[in-house]
């Protein structure tokens, strides 16, 4: 009688022991790998490994534990932190930073003229950037950004900023507002209106023993209604 040679896979290969992410699953995996190296499926000479069969039964009876407490905890934390950060980030989107409201408020005065400046002034270790100058018939406003080396402590003392016209006369400051950001703050300072025909202004920083000056030439105009 001819012995028929059948290529058969051992029974344990049909069991997905790799789905169990635990120590027993690991041991079964290594045992199977060792057996596969020693045996040839076409000889049909699989040694019945009692330990292997017993372990497979045990593994099958275990509840599926791919998801651990640690995994749930850390994924939940990632989700929570990322959501909180997203809320913060939304506040910093360019169109949400409140500038539109300030400009709309200026428009209540009538015609607003905007002059882009973008000039920097060093104040100790911090940097003050005069972004734009806005003039209306009732007031002058400047929009600034302030970058702090150490973000903590008092907010920028806006009283230290003065506007002088060409003859050295000071435009009185009438208030300021600012919003904090992690790297410093952005804000507005309001002054007396600009006398007619003025095209040169000096921004002076005068604070205790610190001084600085910026000359602003109002040539480039960008008119807004």
């Amino acid at each position, binding site marked *: 009688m001819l012995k028929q040679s059948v290529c058969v896979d051992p029974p344990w290969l049909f069991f997905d022991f790799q789905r169990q*992410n635990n120590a027993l*699953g*690991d041991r079964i*995996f290594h045992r199977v790998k060792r057996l596969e190296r020693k045996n040839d499926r076409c000889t049909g000479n699989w040694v019945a490994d009692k330990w292997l069969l017993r372990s497979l039964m045990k593994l099958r009876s275990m509840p599926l534990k791919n998801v651990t407490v*640690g*995994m749930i905890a*850390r*994924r939940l*934390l*990632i989700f929570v*932190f*990322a959501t*909180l*950060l997203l809320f*913060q980030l939304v506040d910093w989107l360019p169109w949400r930073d409140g500038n539109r409201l300030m400009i709309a408020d200026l428009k209540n005065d009538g015609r607003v003229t905007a002059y882009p400046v973008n000039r920097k002034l060093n*104040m*100790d*270790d*911090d940097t003050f950037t005069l972004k734009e100058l806005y003039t209306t018939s009732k007031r002058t406003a400047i929009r600034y950004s302030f970058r*702090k080396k*150490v*973000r*903590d*402590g*008092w*907010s920028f*003392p806006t009283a*230290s900023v003065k506007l002088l016209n060409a003859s050295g006369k000071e435009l009185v400051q009438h208030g300021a507002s600012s919003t*904090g950001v*992690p790297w410093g703050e952005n804000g507005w300072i309001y002054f007396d209106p600009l006398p007619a025909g003025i095209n040169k202004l000096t921004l002076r920083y005068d*604070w*205790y*023993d*610190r001084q600085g000056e910026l000359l602003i030439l109002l040539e480039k105009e960008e008119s807004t209604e």
Partner: protein
Amino acid sequence: MKISRLGGVLEWCAVLILFMILLWVSGLDRGSFTAQGAHELSERSYHYGPSKVVRKVQVDQDTVVFLGTYKQWFSADTVTRSHLKWHPSGGVAGVPKNPEKPLAYSWDINSTGSDGGLAKFYGYVNDPDIVTVELDVVMEDRSSNTATSGSERQSISDDHMFLFVWKTEGRDFRWQSIKGLDREGKVRYENKLQ
């Protein structure tokens, strides 16, 4: 299996990084662990100083006032501690010493919070003959609607500065007058504030 464990470690790193970014963004990492650190922070952010601390006054466990001078100015910077960290509280601004006057003074009343803030009256003595300052004050208790008047004295030492400090505790402080007296008790300077 090893790959999944590596993924676990990477995910915990992501948790840590996100947490630190959130901490930075929220500003909860502000303040200093020392009163001195908070004082330096206060002056640096105010673009004043750094002043020379002539006297450090411990008002209570969580409140310290740094009396200092910087060039022609003097100040009484208060820092307070809440939740382990010290934060600037007020009074950092320098006041001109005004050497042509016998003494210069300023005050700072901070009455926020239930346990109240501080009422400070401080100054710098220029006249070397003034050895004592006397402050007359009326304290009005808002809840019981009573007024107490008091007179406090302080002797001037080498640091030339004086500081009268009280916890406000729901009271309004009305400064009446400040006097500078010499060794014999003669008034060399007086200013009525009310």
